[in-house]
């Protein structure tokens, strides 16, 4: 049975980029519908009450990369946008000591100096140097990349702007940028620091979501990417959205609806309909057809180009690039409902350090060894864990005195050698719990429930191929004007009227909204006949 309804724009996928994109299109006056396959919006940014009173951030769990323009342009505060500061980073160590970085400048320097007096002003220098690089890269991050393969006058003008910008960057800053884009996080950090725990703390974010160890070339790029974020103007600072990232995507949904977008749940798109090389609408799994001149896929490149449409409709070079496009997800989540806060023996009854990130990566070597196992198709015996006990920041996340703890876990490769995730999920989660138990004696006694989210679950539930949290690896050949494929980085596709706005486009993954926003600008410019 087929009904046909007319829209100006159909957005496939109600994740954060789909919502952002749909909101901008609706704001511009397009009759817009956002189609979400699941029973709730948010994609990989959802909050679920898996146990009465306990709210789990199933997948993504913190906010930093969100482009500040989106907050203002989509009037998100009016719809409940409320980022809560994550005030600390707590790094437990194998010897029982720890590194606790908080909000006071002077105290942080003393804490670093406790591990190495040399590293106190080295940290200031590092932070300053990173901020200078971030400042230099930000215009590239926040604008669509020009097309180096297109000689049209408008595009040449954009390339000239880019060249001008690059020429204006201080030589030391440019050199640091290149060292980060091409080198390893660990090499970069070695140039500043003596203390292993300081290096391990900073190196960890150079591995998030990516099949690299801190010593791998390419981890510098991931380190830089995670430094691009900010919270209330503080570069590299993170926040927890009230109600989790699910709370955030609910805000986006309200904003989109306020601009007039429709959101339909349980609406799985089967195909994008095309005629004469242009998109005409979508067909849902239940047979419903919706018509629109603009169809936007917020899904990843594989689904966008090889499932929603027929690869045979696409140029061979694009199909070829997509075949080479790397997903190879390597991250899992293990989320806990806890009957109380853990304790860290050397800090006595102190608990303030649980309000931010708990970085279980006591040395660079620990991180690298955790990665080593994944290279050969197995998950880490002693994993890297980025933990956050979110109910310490937002009491609505758990009943009084009890807590939810989100644990981002690496490395857990999607493709396991000679086994599968159905068989290994519990052992993987046991490794996480055992590791936590080793740092926080008595941890297991606090566990009321645990949720295990393997790369396979990320793929099957959130729809991200191979469980890659960024819609594809953050490798240099998959970034900027190569994301997702050379020449197809400007949100258009070879099919007229069919656009892409997911994390597989520039600037990439994380809850940034950047792809959704930049894609909407492309679409609106095309509709207006502007370059």
């Amino acid at each position, binding site marked *: 049975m087929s009904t046909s309804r007319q829209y100006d724009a159909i957005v496939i996928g109600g994740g954060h980029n789909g919502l952002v994109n749909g909101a901008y299109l609706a704001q511009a006056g397009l009759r817009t519908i956002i189609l979400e396959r699941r029973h709730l919006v948010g994609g990989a940014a959802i909050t679920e009450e898996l146990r009465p009173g306990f709210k789990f951030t199933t997948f993504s769990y913190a906010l930093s990369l969100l482009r500040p323009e989106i907050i203002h342009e989509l009037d998100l505060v009016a719809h409940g946008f409320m980022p809560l500061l994550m005030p600390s980073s707590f790094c437990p160590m194998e010897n029982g000591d720890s590194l606790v970085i908080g909000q006071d400048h*002077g105290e942080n320097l*003393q804490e670093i100096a406790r591990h190495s*007096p040399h590293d*106190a*002003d080295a940290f*200031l220098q590092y932070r300053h140097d990173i901020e200078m690089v971030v400042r230099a890269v930000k215009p590239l991050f926040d604008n669509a990349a020009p097309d180096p393969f297109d000689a049209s006058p408008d595009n040449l003008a954009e390339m000239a702007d880019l060249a001008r910008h690059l020429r204006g960057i201080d030589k030391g800053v440019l050199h640091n940028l290149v060292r980060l884009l091409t080198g390893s996080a660990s090499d970069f950090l070695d140039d500043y620091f003596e203390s292993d725990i300081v290096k391990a703390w900073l190196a960890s974010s150079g591995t998030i979501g990516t099949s690299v160890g801190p010593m791998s070339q390419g981890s510098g790029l991931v380190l830089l990417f995670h430094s691009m974020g900010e919270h209330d103007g503080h570069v590299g600072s993170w926040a927890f959205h009230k109600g989790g990232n699910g709370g955030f995507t609910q805000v986006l949904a309200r904003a989109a609806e306020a601009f007039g977008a429709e959101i339909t749940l349980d609406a799985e798109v089967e195909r994008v309909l095309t005629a004469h090389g242009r998109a005409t609408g979508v067909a849902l799994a239940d047979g419903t057809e919706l018509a629109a001149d603009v169809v936007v896929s917020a899904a990843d490149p594989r689904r966008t180009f090889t499932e929603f449409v027929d690869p045979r409709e696409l140029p061979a070079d694009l199909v070829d690039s997509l075949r080479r496009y790397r997903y190879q997800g390597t991250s899992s989540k293990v989320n806990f409902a806890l009957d109380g806060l853990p304790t860290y023996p050397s800090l006595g009854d102190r608990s303030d350090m649980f309000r931010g990130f708990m970085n279980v990566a006591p040395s660079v070597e620990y991180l690298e060894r955790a990665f080593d196992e994944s290279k050969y198709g197995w998950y880490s015996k002693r994993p890297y864990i980025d933990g956050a006990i979110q109910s310490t920041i937002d009491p609505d996340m758990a009943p009084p005195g009890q807590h939810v703890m989100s644990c981002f876990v690496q490395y857990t490769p999607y493709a396991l050698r000679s086994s599968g995730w159905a068989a290994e999920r519990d052992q993987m989660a046991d490794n996480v719990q055992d590791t936590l138990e080793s740092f926080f004696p008595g941890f297991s006694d606090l566990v009321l429930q645990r949720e295990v989210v393997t790369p396979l679950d990320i793929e099957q539930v959130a729809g991200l191929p191979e469980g890659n949290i960024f819609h594809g690896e953050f490798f240099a050949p998959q970034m900027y004007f190569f994301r997702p494929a050379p020449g197809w980085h400007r949100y258009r596709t070879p099919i007229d009227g069919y656009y892409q706005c997911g994390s597989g486009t520039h600037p990439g993954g994380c809850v940034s909204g950047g792809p959704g926003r930049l894609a909407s600008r492309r679409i609106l410019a095309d509709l207006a006949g502007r370059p």
Partner: protein
Amino acid sequence: MLRRTPFHDRVVAANDTSLWSHWAGHLVVEQYQLSEKWEYVAVRTAAGAFDTSPLYKYRVVGPDAERFLTGVLARDVRTCRPGQAQYTIWCDERGYVNEDGVVFRHASDEFLLTSAAPNLSYFRHQIGRDRVEITDITDALGILAIQGPRSHAVLSALAPEIAGLAYFHHTPAKLGGAAVTISRTGFTGDLGYEIICDRDDAPAVWDAVFDVGAAHGLIPFGQIALLMARIEAGLLLIGKDFESSRFADNDEHRSTPFELGLGWMLRSIDDDSRPFIGRRALLRERDDGTSRWKMVGLAVDPYDHHTKFTAAGMVPPKDHVPVHEDMMVYDDDRRRVGYATSFMYSPVLQRHIALARIVPALAAPGTRVNLEFTINHEYVQVGAEVVRTPMFAPARTTAPMNGAR
């Protein structure tokens, strides 16, 4: 956790207000008494004790220690003989000031350098082939500053070694049973001394000083009183009056020694035997006259201040608590010619005063400029006069001392 200074137990007992602050990661006292002005008055008329232990302290030792520091510090450390101390700065190669501190020379090959911010990695990167070792000994030492006209009487009674100690000299001494170093230095612009002691000796040093000092009116003073005294003394504070060039956003937030009014430190800049970081840039700046600013004192015209506030129906405010926000300075044609970075009403000078950067053309003492105030929620310019720093400089601060008074 904020750290505790070596004097912490004594400081807790003496803090009547329970008002605390934090400085360089240490718990410190904002004001010991509800009247911070009372503490300030003690410094200017009797004596005050300030726990300055949170300063970073570096021991610089080795056969090339002098050579190393001569090349790193902008002021010629060769003129600082064992037993002397120097207020000094270090610059980058563009001549912009990184930071400042006090260097104490203990021997031909041994120095102690204090600074408000950490600098160890920076210094280590400058060592090259020099045979010098730099160690952070911040936590090993406590420093208690005894400042004010009676400081000499208090300390010379306890440690006769300091009786004749000259300005910016130091000496080993015995105090409260502990072996200490006492220097004639401080951050108040008054007669004053600083006692450097081992961490464990700190309580005994405190007790000994107060046992004798109480009869002289010695009281402990906190951060606010210190900030008051240092503005009158024209002593610059990093983070308030200037920023480290290492971490500045851009050149607007950087300053050269000439621009900070510290050109006097560079008297031997023409001496080719002393290349130091920033020298060539500073020579060019001096020779080409390219300084953008000059740090000066401003003394607000009390009549104009009174007139403008009273005409607006206000009682002219005379608040001694320092303000560290940019206040704009204009010439008589309403062109902006500078900005103040520290401002207060000075009780000893009975004037509103400021530390300000002024364009060099208007930086001569006696030049009249206008400082911007907010009166009835509007910007109003009040006349002010460029004055030399230090604005408060009693003779006793630097005077020779011969025996106890």
